[in-house]
């Protein structure tokens, strides 16, 4: 199933290994189950019966996922809608608790899952930079030192002092991305958010990500439907299908397998550029 899903736990357990050489994120046999209830009272019935009553159906969004995010790499994640990509990313980022398996995170990770995540609508752009930075656990001095870089990269000009309720999706994308990258995490996990910006912004993001992962101790994980984007940024790709990792390996090989699968199963997007 996987090209590089082996021996990681053995290697990690060896005490002589330099921690800096270990993957930034390691996931072993990850699984996420959602309990689906037909009505809210059913959960109460289950609780009150101390688990004897069984009122839910289980939906496994991700099952048995084992992968590493190595230092110095950009890992791509592809798959159809509902395949479990975002659920996997949320678990890798430490946002969602896995139902089974474990995630080891070695460093500071920023997940860019939604454009407005961490932003308050009542604040302006500049205030939101400070607010979101503090929410991510940084002190005011650290954020202040990077504030001008963030604003410059976001290219918001005078709008940075306007309430974010007046921002377009593109402006949110630029501000969110700038905030997450200039706070300088060890790893960036990005879920489709680059798709919102215009072409010029995307090119700047690509260049920034290339530079980011060229530092050997950094890594990025990109979830995207855009094969062009994955091909441009990633040397290694994970393909997820219905919650299971179908393949992990070199980008071209995995993309080709995914493209063939989509063609065979009629899942290719109408736009032929989607699979290239």
């Amino acid at each position: 199933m996987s090209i590089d899903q082996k021996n990681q736990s053995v290697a990690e357990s060896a005490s002589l290994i330099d921690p800096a050489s270990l993957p930034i994120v390691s996931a072993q046999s990850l699984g996420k189950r959602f309990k689906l209830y037909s009505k809210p009272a059913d959960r109460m019935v289950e609780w009150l019966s101390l688990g004897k009553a069984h009122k839910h159906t289980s939906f496994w969004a991700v099952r048995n996922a084992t992968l590493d995010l190595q230092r110095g790499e950009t890992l791509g994640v592809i798959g159809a809608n509902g395949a479990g990509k975002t659920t996997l990313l949320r678990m890798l980022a430490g946002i969602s608790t896995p139902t089974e398996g474990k995630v080891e995170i070695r460093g500071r990770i920023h997940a860019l899952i939604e454009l407005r995540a961490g932003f308050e609508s009542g604040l302006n752009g500049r205030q939101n930079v400070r607010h979101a930075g503090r929410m991510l656990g940084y002190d005011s001095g650290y954020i202040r030192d990077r504030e001008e870089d963030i604003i410059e990269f976001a290219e918001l000009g005078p709008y940075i002092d306007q309430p974010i309720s007046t921002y377009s999706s593109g402006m949110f994308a630029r501000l969110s991305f700038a905030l997450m990258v200039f706070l300088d995490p060890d790893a960036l996990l990005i879920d489709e958010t680059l798709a919102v910006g215009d072409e010029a912004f995307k090119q700047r993001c690509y260049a920034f990500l290339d530079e980011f992962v060229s530092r050997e101790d950094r890594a990025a994980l990109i979830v995207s439907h855009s094969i062009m984007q994955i091909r441009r940024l990633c040397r290694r790709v994970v393909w997820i299908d219905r919650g299971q990792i179908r393949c992990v390996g070199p980008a071209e090989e995995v993309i080709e397998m995914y493209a063939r699968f989509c063609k065979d199963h009629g899942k290719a997007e109408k736009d032929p550029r989607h699979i290239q």
Partner: protein
Amino acid sequence: MFRRSKAIFHARYAAHSLGFLWHFIHPAILIGMYSIVFGWLVRRDFAAVSVPYPVFLCAGLLPWMFFAEVLSRGTSAFRSNRVYLRKLAIPEQVFVGEVVLSSVATFLIQFAILICFGAFFGIFPSWTWIGMPLPIIILGITGFGFALGLATVNAYFPDIHQALIAILRLAIWTAPVIFPLAFYAQSSIGWLVRVNPATSAIMAMRLLYIDGVWPSVWIWAEMLAWAVGAMVIGVAVHRLLRHEIRDVV
């Protein structure tokens, strides 16, 4: 937790013209209303109240409002911060902690105003005032513990918060806030006053602030027992049910 709490606190009032002032407007209306009704319209003299009624009322009402705010806002903390919980890897406890810290800040300013207000009625500094932060700290820990457990259950069942608001509206009458403790001694609801988690802290605050008397060991023991009990319950409930909180809020 402190840094994140401060960020949420700032953000909450950024869009309000009067901002933080709302924390004084609401209690001022409540204190004014109770003072008029129970200090003037009803004109009931309580033998146990040695100071003007508004001062007696404030010394009990402010700690009660602090506790009620921690419980009320703390219980809805996970649901009202779902934007953060679903998208950022921030520990859930931070959001309950923020409620406690912001409520402490509000209480401190409100109580500072009360001290100025009390000076007009002859309440002057006493050595026992150095102990006044202690009941509030212990009451804050009690509130954090209960709120953490309630917020966890409320993530699954939002009815919990609505039920709590109703209970708190009734519970003010089962704490020695509007009437002195002695008033309840012969009452059929006296036992409810004794089991109210805020009763001992309110008694301690009045003794320290108004009477200049250090509370007895039993009052301190009762406060600490509530704090330890609430923390044990809150942490246990959160640990038991936390795995799905971010999926259901």
